[in-house]
């Protein structure tokens, strides 16, 4: 690490021994910027997917719903029985029957809010909040089956599992993308370093002839290319973050698509993009330079 910063802070005069270069340098800047931009998106995708997967797989923090069917009288009796059972079940923090208004509110998006719900034989819903660690879902369902007909426990796992799977899949894709971007960056910088070193064979020869150590020659090139990769990917990163910021906010709707971005300290994560790029460029150009230098006595 000390070597890394030491090399990067080399003085301007020894940097001038490498002539200013044209196309290769612009292409490297461009590729670094593009990769920095893409890396921010891949990072946002991976981190969002991670949050979503975490949220939905954390079963204990989710509320479950108990549904009690039957006619009005049965419902009342069964609700009381169920609440008793829930009260005795270890691992349950609280349970509460939803009021008629709450049930109406749940249905309103589908059925409209002017429906005379009182006339419909709606099941009674009970919200169950678990403690940590939670309760034994299967045992509870078994007891309900035995003691209260028409009471069904739904812990949402049926529709939560595919969301969690999808989120984990996306997270994996994001991580793979980041690895590919890093690899592409390493390959590009290596190619750029090789091209620059080859174009400057005469310079390297003269430097060796006047008594430059390999470390000096390699350092001059490594610095040049590392700084370029750092600047390019820094610019790409800033643009990427702006683009993520400019994604339309989801407002009340809590969907994956409207959630893409960074949360809290997650906003610091993109800062790693230029740093990683610089380290990759540092290593890749160092290797390329040492290989090239072996050609000179």
């Amino acid at each position, binding site marked *: 690490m000390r070597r890394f910063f030491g090399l990067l802070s080399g003085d301007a*005069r020894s940097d001038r021994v490498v002539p200013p270069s044209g196309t290769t340098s612009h292409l490297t800047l461009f590729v670094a910027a593009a990769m920095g931009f893409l890396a921010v998106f891949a990072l946002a995708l991976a981190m969002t997917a991670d949050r979503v997967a975490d949220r939905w797989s954390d079963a204990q923090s989710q509320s479950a719903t108990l549904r009690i069917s039957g006619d009005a009288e049965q419902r009342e009796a069964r609700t009381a029985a169920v609440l008793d059972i829930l009260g005795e079940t270890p691992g349950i923090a609280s349970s509460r029957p939803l009021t008629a208004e709450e049930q109406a509110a749940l249905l309103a998006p589908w059925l409209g809010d002017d429906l005379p719900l009182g006339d419909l034989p709606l099941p009674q819903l009970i919200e169950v909040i678990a403690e940590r660690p939670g309760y034994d879902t299967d045992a509870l369902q078994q007891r309900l089956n035995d003691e209260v007909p028409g009471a069904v426990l739904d812990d949402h796992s049926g529709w939560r599992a595919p969301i969690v799977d999808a989120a984990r899949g996306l997270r994996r894709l994001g991580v793979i993308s980041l690895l590919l971007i890093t690899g592409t960056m390493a390959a590009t910088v290596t190619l750029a370093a090789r091209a620059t070193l080859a174009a400057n064979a005469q310079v390297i020869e003269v430097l060796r002839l006047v008594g430059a150590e390999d470390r000096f020659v390699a350092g001059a090139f490594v610095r040049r290319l590392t700084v370029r990769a750092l600047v390019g990917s820094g610019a790409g990163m800033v643009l990427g973050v702006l683009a993520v910021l400019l994604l339309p906010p989801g407002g009340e709707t809590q969907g994956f698509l409207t959630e893409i971005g960074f949360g809290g300290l997650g906003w610091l994560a993109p800062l790693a993009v230029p740093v990683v790029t610089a380290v990759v460029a540092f290593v890749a150009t160092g290797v390329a330079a040492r290989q090239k230098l072996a050609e000179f006595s």
Partner: protein
Amino acid sequence: MIELEQVGFDYGGGALFGDVSLSLPAGSFHFLTGPSGSGKTTFLKLCYGALNPTKGRILAFGDDVAAATRDDMATLRRRIGVVHQDCRFLDHLPVADNIALPLTVSGRDLAQEQQNLTDLLGWVGLSERADAYPAELSGGERQRAALARAVILSPDVIIADEPTGNIDWDMSQRLLRLLVDLNSMGKTVLIASHDMSLIRAAKSEVQARVLRISNKQVQLAGADL
């Protein structure tokens, strides 16, 4: 300073040198002569470690050059100043920076060496040309700049390959005098040249010896110049 022990060399197309043993003592002044293509440049490269002998060994400052690591080689090149036949400048840097290049690559503090550089530019008569680029220099100016670069680290040995190759007589005399100056400061000097009149002129100024390449040998020439 530099000793050759039974040195043979071959680029792959037949031996250029067979079995050369000689030494360049500290403070000596040698010319190396021979027809074009006889191996003068090759001999100098062997002396400053750009080539390794295919037979025998070469000692520079007492150490076997073939055994030098790459960093040792860099150190050796700072102790042997070389004026290359084609000068070898960095074309994108002005003359002063080219002359200061050995300082730059050895990490010297250039601010402290500024006086040294100014003196050196004056000594080779390039004070006015410090900011020019190598491509803007005349042949003689290039050779003098190359000499200045070769001596800026104050090396013990100075090797020059045809330093008067394509410059006029007056300029060659001037360059020769610079090399004689260096020798009088105690530097070991080795100059490859096929210009016999230059060598004759030098003999009146300095205790110079002449090495001649013939028959894959490098031998001291007699007084028959």
